[in-house]
């Protein structure tokens, strides 16, 4: 055999690196192929140990699963297994396999001006040919596509649910509705101490979202929160919609000391004694107040429903 063996590639052999001619046979001691590790023997040993740790981790996980499993140990064994196995493999690649540096040529992505022109011309000319003296067909096609787009949206979007209609404007609170707690029990005027708070619903709607109302007892005498609401707070009972006017979270925290309602989602704060006016945070409106009355047997009832939509703002809200 002669020296030409050193270059074994010809035009018929694929080279991935983009070199025009073949790339010579590399010697085993070509520095580009040498391991990165200073001491490959030691690296091999270490990698072997690490891979073994991985193997042991997998085995331990398997054994643990067999005997019934335990979340924390499953995490340890599986984690160690995968981590060590992966670490060993990566180290193998980094310290023992050829690191080069090898080089690959980039080829121009851009084509020649002529090729670009040919592509553009093809699109343009053929496109014009399609519609040449057939503009009316194009118009019909466009109109049809437009109608198709709109019509397809019906089943995709419109079928999903009902129209809103008045659902955001109204609640199920009606005149004379009894206030009930979560279990449906009517609220008596003796049920709350001063400083107490309770989530209430109209009778028959316990647990519903839009009707949830925060009942607090601020004092032992009638309270007027705002002008025009003279009779709304009998015996210190005040009821406000529990849906935050910001993003609709339940305004669930009542601070007895400051007599404020706090929404835990975005920290809006409402002052109970001045008509749940927002005193802090992003809420843009007061919580709507539910006018209350105490009937002859001492049960709390609504004088009427809310006088405005409850909860967050929306386009149709006037």
């Amino acid at each position, binding site marked *: 055999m002669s020296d030409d063996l050193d270059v074994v590639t010809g035009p018929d052999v694929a080279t991935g690196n983009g070199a025009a001619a073949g790339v010579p046979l*590399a010697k085993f001691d070509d520095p580009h192929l040498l391991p990165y590790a200073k001491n490959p023997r030691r690296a091999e040993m270490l990698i072997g140990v690490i891979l073994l740790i991985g193997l042991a981790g997998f085995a331990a996980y398997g054994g643990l699963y067999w005997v019934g499993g335990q979340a924390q140990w499953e995490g340890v064994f599986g984690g160690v297994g995968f981590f060590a196995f992966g670490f060993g493999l990566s180290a193998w690649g980094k310290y023992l396999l050829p690191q*080069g540096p090898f080089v690959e040529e980039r080829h121009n992505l851009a084509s020649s001006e002529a090729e670009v022109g040919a592509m553009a011309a093809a699109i343009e000319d053929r496109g014009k040919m399609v519609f040449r003296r057939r503009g009316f067909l194009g118009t019909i096609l466009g109109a049809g596509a437009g109608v198709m787009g709109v019509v397809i949206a019906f089943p995709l979007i419109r079928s999903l649910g009902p129209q809103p209609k008045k659902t*955001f404007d109204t609640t199920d609170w009606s005149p004379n509705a009894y206030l009930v707690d979560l279990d449906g029990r009517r609220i008596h005027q003796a049920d709350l101490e001063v400083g107490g708070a309770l989530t209430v619903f109209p009778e028959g709607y316990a647990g519903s979202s839009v009707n949830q109302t925060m009942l607090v007892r601020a004092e032992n005498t009638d309270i007027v929160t705002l002008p025009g609401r003279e009779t709304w707070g009998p015996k210190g009972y005040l009821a406000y919609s529990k849906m935050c006017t910001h993003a609709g979270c339940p305004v669930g925290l009542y601070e007895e000391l400051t007599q404020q309602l706090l929404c835990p989602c975005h920290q809006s704060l409402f002052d109970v004694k001045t008509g749940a006016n927002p005193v802090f945070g992003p809420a*843009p409106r007061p919580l709507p107040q539910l006018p209350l009355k105490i009937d002859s047997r001492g049960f709390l009832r609504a004088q009427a429903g809310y006088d405005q939509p409850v909860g967050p703002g929306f386009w149709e809200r006037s």
Partner: protein
Amino acid sequence: MSAARSRTAMRGRGAGRDKSQKPDPVVAGVRWLDERLGVAKGGRVLLDKIFPDHWSFLLGEIALYSLVVLIATGIFLSLYFVPSAQDIIYHGVYAPLRGSKVSAAFASTVNLSFGVRSGLVIRQMHHWAADVFVGAIAVHMCRIFFTGAYRKPRELNWMIGITLLILALTNGFIGYSLPDDLVSGTGLRIMFSIVLSIPIVGSYLATFLFGGNFPGDGSIIPRLFIVHVLVVPLIILGLVGAHLGLLVRQKHTQFPGHGRTEKNVVGSPMYPTFIAKTTGFLFVTTGVLWALGGLAQINPIWQFGQYEPYKISYAVQPDWYMGWLDGALRIMPPISWTLWGHTIPLVVFFPAVLFPGICFNLFFAWPFVEAKVTGDRSEHNLLDRPRDKPKRTAIGVAALTFFFTLFAASSTDVLANYFKISLNEVLWFFRFAVFIVPSIAGVFTYYLCREMTGVPGIGRRKRAVVITRSAQGEYESVETAPRPGDGQEELTPTPVPDRIELDGELEPVEAAGSGVRRIPRRL
């Protein structure tokens, strides 16, 4: 030496001329595929694909491998999860919950955590993987931004990446909305209000999606489920394919260095070096996520309880990647416009719809904005060092600081409690800080970068200097010899060889004297 024999053998293997020899199974396999798919040319290009070595190139891989873990664990979860809001009486393995009324989604999530062996680990792994996925995308994006890798010809891949980030955020949110626990229900309540806040179509969209006013007719969970497990993952996979496809087509970017030009790529080849390293890294990522899944509790829904629309808990926080939007919602001043008898709840619509829309559109537009401003429309394959581009780096740092400030603003209540200051002050602090802190950070970064570029040899390892005093009292300073690996022995890059002579003593260390021959990659 048996080199001659071996060369003959290898030649026979490569060309397959020697019919008397037993056919090599690899040759036979390659030929079989090649005759059907023509893999020998293109496949060889793929095997020889060069991957530049730099730690920052791992960040995208973390994202990719988290996605692999997400899909694997997600398939497992979907075998047990029941996407239904229907109320049932719980009779499962978790004793404290027995007899209470919960939704099928909640019950099945508790059951797959406690009743299925390894279920808890895999569920928590899924959640951790989602958090890591978004995080890795974010830091990967930072790498691309600060090194200018998005410049021509890679603008398209940048835009695909931004889309992937949006999809990851979306699917993460939908994912933790599925189990119907208190946190997920609260998130959905806020999402409902956000949809509701859109002018003109908001109320329609909201009732369509949820099947009525919140909480709707129970259809939102099955709907979100199919979006979470089919629609979004399909798009993500498609785009990841395109992302990697473009990467192969356009080849990697690289930092400047010895033998590296705009016209080449220098590094280690796909096969076998990169394959070994990256497969190992897949396992390492899996291992970390697995250990997190087993050891670090995440989203313990049995502690939060079933969602009820009237229930709420203190310190409600979304997953971390939603924090910036939650913070924006918190510090937005209470503005609500009323126009012509209509309400525009800007207090929700701006921070939750317009603001992220503006941000993502700016991200999409950035490569083109930069090209327009700098007038630089040439192709770039060599990466910038962040300090060499003070303006870009300053803008990036300002943006990062901005988002981090918003993120911190999503814990106003926690911060107020922790530092024992009033919530009011914390809120007002953030309303100003969100503009002031990024400005300061940006200006500081700009001047820092300018200073750094002015210092010669910054970032390079400095050699020790030995100062000696002669008997006459003269001082002399001498630079010490370079330490091994200090850049004196860096090799000139060479193309990947077609053949490697494998015979000979495989003790190259002794033969070469030392394995050290390469410097740490310099920028």
